[in-house]
């Protein structure tokens, strides 16, 4: 079963001092389906992270005080409403949450790339090469509109999911899209706006279930405490 779009919902708050934003899906998601969120905060000066309990970050960008992030989570069926919090600052937020079925329930994330600019009408983050196929690419374009209204285009080759925010001056705006791929050829996305604006483009890849699972290797260096403790925990392994 190929990865399939299930549902989405968007949210926007017309206030420049928000420390978070909540998105409520129309229906409770299905257990083990994948949830992907794109959050953008206009005038988000000082924001160092965008988080939600139980969610993992795929990519994060901050430029000229505009923060944006893509996050994901394997659903346990309870995430009808999710609140995304901003660390270190506040701003005017918009967000989109999308549910997909048919993806891996253990380690769906297969890489991400993102890029942002204080003034651009088109941006292309680095290509991402899937470790396995088939899979799903989530492309998100977001911007903080200046004094002139702007619109965002659906990336070429992608299927439109949702738009959040407003196209008029001094508002955040998000446009998300997705596509599936059948082989491990590098995946790209280009985000374009109707004119120069503070722009961010995110690309995240997610795997379908595969027998070729490879768990990421933990680095010993990151586990050694600064105090120089020479003993580290390791899970014992023996079956009765």
């Amino acid at each position, binding site marked *: 079963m190929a990865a399939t779009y299930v549902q989405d919902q968007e949210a926007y708050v017309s206030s420049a001092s928000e420390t978070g934003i909540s998105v409520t899906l129309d229906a409770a998601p299905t257990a083990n389906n994948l949830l992907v969120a794109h959050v953008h905060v206009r005038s988000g000066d000082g924001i160092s992270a965008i988080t939600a309990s139980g969610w993992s970050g795929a990519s994060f960008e901050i430029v000229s005080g505009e923060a944006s992030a893509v996050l994901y989570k394997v659903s346990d069926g309870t995430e009808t409403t999710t609140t995304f919090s901003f660390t270190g600052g506040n701003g005017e937020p918009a967000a989109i949450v999308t549910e997909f079925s048919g993806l891996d329930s253990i380690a769906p994330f297969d890489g991400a790339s993102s890029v942002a600019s204080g003034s651009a009408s088109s941006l292309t983050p680095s290509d991402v090469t899937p470790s396995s196929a088939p899979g799903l690419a989530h492309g998100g374009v977001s911007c903080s509109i200046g004094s002139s209204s702007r619109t965002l285009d659906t990336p070429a080759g992608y299927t439109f999911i949702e738009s959040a925010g407003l196209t008029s001056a001094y508002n955040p705006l998000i446009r998300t899209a997705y596509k599936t791929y059948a082989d491990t050829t590098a995946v790209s996305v280009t985000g374009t706006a109707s004119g120069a604006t503070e722009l961010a483009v995110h690309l995240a890849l997610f795997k379908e279930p595969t027998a070729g699972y490879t768990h990421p290797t933990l680095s010993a260096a990151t586990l050694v405490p600064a105090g120089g403790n020479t003993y580290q925990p390791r899970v014992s*392994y023996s*079956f009765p």
Partner: protein
Amino acid sequence: MAFRASNVIPQTAYQTVKAAAVQLRLNVQAMVAHLAATNATYDYLRGVYQTLKRANDQFTSLRSTPGLADYAMAQEDDPTYDVAAEFVGMQNTIASALAWMEANVPLSVTLRPLSEWNDGGSLVATSFTPAQTAQLRTHLNEVVASVA
């Protein structure tokens, strides 16, 4: 009396149960293939457990939806299909797989000196061979077989 808008109706509950069962089967089939083909890390087995538990918890929360059984029977339009029994049977296979993992996958943590780590400085991965997970694969195949 207010209009009851916040409760889950049988149609929504049954659609979610079906979708969750399909998603579970899809993933468990891949898990069985992976466990048979190669050694599985402790983290992978934890993912297997979490996948089973997430589905089982949602099934449990939805099975008490008023009218679910009657709605499901009407939708399937098959007098020989006992949807309630099959639902219970599916959950029983999941429970068996979870019980096996709880009884057989060690949860204890030991301390190992850094010198026992491999030359690359990476954590020595705890792994379980296909032979060690053979019984688990049997339980997982029963989960797959319980979903048509």
